[in-house]
C-alpha cells in the first residue's frame, strides 16, 4: 500500500512536472523543489481531494509568519505527510 509520502510525491510530480525520483522525504517543497505558491495551491487541492481533508494552509502560514513554527514543520515532505496523517486521523476520530 502506498504511503502518505508516496501519494504526496506522486501528486507533486504530476502537478509540477518534477521528476518523481528527485522528490525525497527530506525535500523542502519550496527551498528544494522550488514549488511556488500558485503550484502549491494546486497541490493542496489535489491533497485535499485525495485524503478528503482540508490542509489548514492559512493557519500554517500565520504560524510561520508569527515565528511560532518553521517552514520545515509543514513543507518538508516527510513532515507534511505526518501532518496529513494527523488530519486524516482527526477526521476519523
Amino acid at each position, binding site marked *: 500500500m502506498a504511503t502518505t509520502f508516496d501519494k504526496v510525491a506522486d501528486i507533486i510530480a504530476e502537478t509540477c512536472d518534477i521528476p518523481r525520483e528527485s522528490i525525497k522525504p527530506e525535500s523542502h517543497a519550496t527551498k528544494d523543489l522550488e514549488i511556488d505558491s*500558485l503550484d502549491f*495551491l*494546486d497541490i*493542496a*487541492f489535489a491533497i*485535499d*481531494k485525495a485524503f478528503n481533508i*482540508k*490542509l*489548514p*494552509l*492559512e*493557519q500554517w*502560514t500565520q504560524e510561520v509568519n508569527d515565528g511560532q513554527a518553521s517552514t520545515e514543520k509543514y513543507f518538508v515532505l516527510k513532515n507534511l505527510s505526518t501532518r496529513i496523517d494527523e488530519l486524516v486521523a482527526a477526521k476519523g476520530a
Partner: protein
Amino acid sequence: MRLEYFQMIDRIIEVDLEAGRLRAACTVPKESTIFEGHFPSYPLMPGVLLIECMAQTAGWLVCMRGRFAAMPFLAGVKEGKFRTLVFPGDRLEFEGSVVHEGSGYTVAECTGQRDGKKVCDAQLTFRIMPYPSPQFREAFFTWGERLELPIKELAR
C-alpha cells in the same frame, strides 16, 4: 455588460448558496472600442473576456459563500474552452459552481451558454485574500449592490 469597466455581469438570475451555485446573465454590447481591434470588420467577443465573465460569475458566488469577508482573486484557469464564436449583441448566461473550498483558496467551475447551448467553460482557482484597503472594499460592495447582491445581509 460594461466592457470598458470590466463589469461583465448585468444581473444575477439565481443563487443557491447551500448548493454552491449561481447563475448570471449579461448581454455583449453591440458597440465597443474593443471590437474595432478584435476584429476589424468581424467583431468578436475575445475569449479572454469570456474567462473574465466566468471568473466574475464564480467570483461573486465565492464572495457570497464567504459572506464577503475576503476577496477572491483569480489565480488559475484550467481547461478553458471556447466552443463557439460569441458576437456583439449576444445574450449570455453563466453558471458557476463551487468544486472545493480549501484553506485560503476556492476551486470553482463555470460554463457560459447562449440560447441554451454551451459557448465556454473552465475550472477556476481563486486565492482568498483580505481586501487591499477599506476604499477597495467599499467600491467592491457598491459594485455588488448594483447587481442587487444581499451584501448587507451577508457581510454585516
